[in-house]
């Protein structure tokens, strides 16, 4: 029997991968992809929790998370394009310099 712990460990690992990507990748696109990875690990927890508790709220929540992820990806990538157009790069190090 696959217990919820299995899923939680897997989700933890995915979240960790996403965190590492967000912290250490310099390409803004990769950062956004890592965020998708983190959102997915959360989704996995929601679905496995939904099965454990016999409660469908978790699955509805996943649906909302996917909606939010779509909006986030759309706006986030629009910003990537705008930044690229203005500065010609999507390197986070460079963009950080602008902060002053």
């Amino acid at each position, binding site marked *: 029997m696959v217990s919820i712990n299995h899923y939680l460990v897997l989700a933890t690992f995915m979240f960790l991968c996403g965190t590492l990507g967000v912290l250490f990748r310099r390409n803004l696109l990769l950062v956004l992809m890592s965020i998708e990875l983190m959102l997915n690990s959360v989704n996995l927890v929601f679905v496995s929790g939904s099965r454990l508790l016999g409660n469908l709220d978790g699955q509805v929540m996943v*649906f909302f998370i*996917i*909606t939010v992820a*779509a*909006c986030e*990806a*759309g706006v986030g*990538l*629009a910003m990537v*394009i705008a930044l690229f157009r203005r500065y010609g790069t999507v390197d986070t190090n460079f963009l950080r310099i602008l902060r002053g």
Partner: protein
Amino acid sequence: MNPYLPVLIVLLLGVGLGGILSGLAHFAGPRKPNRIKSEPYECGVPIVGERDKMSVKFYLTAILFILFDIETVFLYLWAMTFRELGWFGIGEIVVFLAVLFAGYVYVVKRGALEWD
């Protein structure tokens, strides 16, 4: 039997078949590469210019696609529960669509869908 088992079988079969076709291309034919032959196709003349950067229009189309895709999924879920929800459901979905339609009108007014 798990209903998803056939999905797995077809997936493996499809990947296998694609792989076989790819492999055939590799091993069945002759292989005599030379520099001119493997240049990217340009109607036989030397390559002019760089690979163009694509227009931002494609991106705008894709983002609109995502957002309307989500809407379609909401609508599928609603269509499944339609008989149960009845007029209440119609009211819900009309509000939902009205809001989205406002966004759609903005998109059209702003000319994001014009290709020129």
